[in-house]
């Protein structure tokens, strides 16, 4: 799973809609960011490069985008 950290819930919901239009289903989660505090992230199944490209082309500021660590 990919985790994309976004500045606000509004950005997260906008990003979710854009990804859905491009065939990616995602889940919005609240996260606590180190030294920043409350924030929002999207959990998405897909390739990080393509997801980043889609979000950037929609002018959505992505704070970070990384693969989640396997918790198993």
């Amino acid at each position, binding site marked *: 799973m990919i985790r994309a950290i976004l*500045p606000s819930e509004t950005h997260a919901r906008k990003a979710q809609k854009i990804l859905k239009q491009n065939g990616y289903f995602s889940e919005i989660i*609240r996260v606590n*960011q180190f030294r920043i505090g409350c924030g929002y992230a999207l959990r998405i199944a897909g390739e990080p490069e393509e997801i980043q490209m889609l979000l950037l082309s929609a002018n959505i500021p992505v704070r970070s985008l990384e693969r989640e660590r396997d918790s198993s």
Partner: protein
Amino acid sequence: MTVNFDNAATTFPKPPEVRLAVEKAIAWYGSSGRGSHPIAARGSELIYHAREDIAAFFDAEPENVVFTANCTHALNLAIQGIAKQGGHVIISSLEHNSVSRPVYALARNQKLQYSIASVTASASETLENFAKLIRSDTIAIICTIASNVTGQILPFREIGALCQEKQICFIADGAQACGVIPVSLRDQINILCTAGHKGLYGITGTGLLISDGKYAIPPLMQGGSGSMSLQPEMPDFLPDALEAGTLNVIGAASLRAGVRFVKRKGIENIYHTEMSLCDRFCERMQKLPDVILYREAGADYVPIVSFNIRGRQSEEIANQLAKQGFCLRAGLHCAPLAHYALHTMEITEGAVRFSPSVFSGMQETDRLCDLIKKFV
């Protein structure tokens, strides 16, 4: 029976779908942006959908739609935010106190200088009056799209183009225009401020600031935003930067329903319905020699008509009409600049304002005219 012709203050009644949206919001939504549990998530989803619908209506981006308590709140955010850099602004001679008072307060504290552009019946002359006041330190034009006293529409698209050409900010007050005439950020408005409870048919306690994102607006209030909580400052991105504290979720639900109502009805239909009542009102009033109508040939209007009866105080007329069930607003309408420009102060210190909504009817308009005829 009470008939409301004071819709320029607040539209009443509200459409049935707005009432239903409010009922549902009370029963269903919690706060927004404050958690991931189901009640908060439902609230957040509603707020986002409201931003989306409003953004689409004004050709904006959802994240640039800021919910405010009213249009005055939105205008204060915009004016005081833009004025942080100092400089000079231009307002019109028809401004409401929601524009003139914040500008005056900043000027009194020597944070801003201002000039007043005279609005005439000629759009080109009005535009020229704005253009000739632009100085090298002018940072913005702040003006109403349509006067809340006369209903006169300013050449706002041309003013937007002028601001674009001169690279200055255009802050537009859409309180009397939004929902009645087409208004869009494509009209080169940088920051559109409007009420939610007038032509957009939301409940009182709702307003909007809609930005094109070009000009940064520092917050007036600091507090919880549900984001970046460890930082001592407010977030620097919209909408969070300007939405400190819990949002009016019920108000946003009503405003979303109101905007959808306006879209479904069609702005042109709404305009024609209301203007036909204003035209009838004017036609009948023009036959009464002692009635003064504040309308000028060559100017364009939203559905608002102000009038006076010679020798009578405006408040006295409104009180007499109210006794017969007709609700019209008299006095200065919080717009003394406009009344000075119209010279009503020399007659009755104000005027009586007729402002229908899409729910107003021709029969009621005729009954009102019959009643006024008896006063003359």
